[in-house]
């Protein structure tokens, strides 16, 4: 089943369909969140808040080519930025989730600490574009659809973000990022 189909089922009252959306995108959202916040506990909170926000804001969720993933990544970036606010909103629910197994999960970790640091220095708008277009490999038009802005806006934000990143990331890393983008 696609996100679209599961989403329609969930909106019709099938909670399990929302569970399938979580199953499908949990790992990507987790991997992205690792770039955004410093500790595993924060990553766990960002992931939970992202999916809870997905349901709370279900009237405004955007699909790109039938997938909710770009919207989830954007929401995770927002959730990481406002982690304390999100954690307050869902405090009771987060408190009753068990802690993650402390054993490190190397599959979710990767050495991009320079990029993580640089990403944190960008404005939220630029961070969203870099996340979608450079780190996650979506096209400019897909990013535009996920963010609800014109493709030209994505292009100019991306250009601006690259200029800012260039000051902070070693040339080899940026080249890799650009290769990934194309």
């Amino acid at each position, binding site marked *: 089943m696609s996100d679209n189909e599961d989403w329609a089922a969930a909106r019709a009252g099938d909670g399990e369909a929302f*569970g399938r959306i979580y199953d499908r995108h*949990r790992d990507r959202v987790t991997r992205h969140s690792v770039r955004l916040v410093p500790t595993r506990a924060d990553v766990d909170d960002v992931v939970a808040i992202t*999916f*809870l926000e997905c*349901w709370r804001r279900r009237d405004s969720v955007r699909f790109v080519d039938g997938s909710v993933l770009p919207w989830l990544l954007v929401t995770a970036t927002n959730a990481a930025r406002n982690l304390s606010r999100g954690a307050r909103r869902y405090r009771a629910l987060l408190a009753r989730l068990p802690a993650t197994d402390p054993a490190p999960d190397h599959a979710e970790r990767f050495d991009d600490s320079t990029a993580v640091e640089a990403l944190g220095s960008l404005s939220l708008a630029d961070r969203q574009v870099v996340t979608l277009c450079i780190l996650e490999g979506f096209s400019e038009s897909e990013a535009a659809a996920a963010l609800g802005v014109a493709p030209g806006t994505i292009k100019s934000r991306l250009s601006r973000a690259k200029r800012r990143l260039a000051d902070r990331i070693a040339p080899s890393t940026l080249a890799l990022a650009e290769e990934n983008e194309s």
Partner: protein
Amino acid sequence: MNETREDALRRELVMVATPAPMAQRMKPRTLIAGAAAIALAGALMGGAVSAVALGSNETQAPVEITRSDIDAVTARGLELVGTHAELFGTPFIVSGRGNVVVELGPVPEGASSVAFSLTCVSVGQIAVSVNGGPQEAWVTCEDEDGDGSYGGFGTFIDRVTDAENTITLESSANLVLWASWAQQATRPAQSQAQIDALADGTVTAEEYDAGFERFAACMAGAGHPLGSIFKGTVIYRYVMSNEAVSTGTDVQCYEAEFMEIDSSWQIANADTSESTEFLRQCLRDNGIDPAYPAEEVDRQMRESGIDPRDCG
């Protein structure tokens, strides 16, 4: 075998997306009236909400603001204050850009902190520091939703001195700041009964009802009994006096006995609850097409000025 966090989160998400047969009580609208009462009191104390731009640095640039900018920053400040603090004197309202210095003077007797809210009037970034100390906050002003609002920030500043007090803003955005001396109320601790009800991670209908009863008993014991209590099979309704709000009794009793239980229950039941459907029907009766999300229904109720006590 213990449930993993991922499995537990999945279970919660499935539950959140599954319509609940039970409903939560209606939120007390008198809380809104309480905030308005504080706004009036503040205005009366000083005769008017005055605009006092005290920035002395020559790099401060004047900016044009509108009445709605002042209303927005005031509303944000009063929302922050709610019933959690008592205000002293006339709030400061300052607009500016660049280096903005707000001289608050010495702490008035009885006050212990500054209630502080700022609203961005354009894109940019704002750094906030107090009494020459390290940066207290860093605000990025953006129009995230494309609706012409650029966000803002509000908090209580506790690091004040008996002598002069100064808030310094370094801003590339146009901004409006609202600040008032305040005395924050002591936050009540949760009662053991509320802690026990939450211990297993699930709030049952029985625990919800027991929590509500403790809340009602606490209010009555403090001399502000809840009125017009209606406990249907799925909807709890009640009203409280303005005095209960203005004295902070509602916050003390609600947080001690019922807030976490209520919050937990409401998160699990928000949009599909019969109380939200009750409000939707009320909107229909008033010729308004109701939205689906519960918070959107709340907004429609507020904006249309319908008192839920007049519904049904």
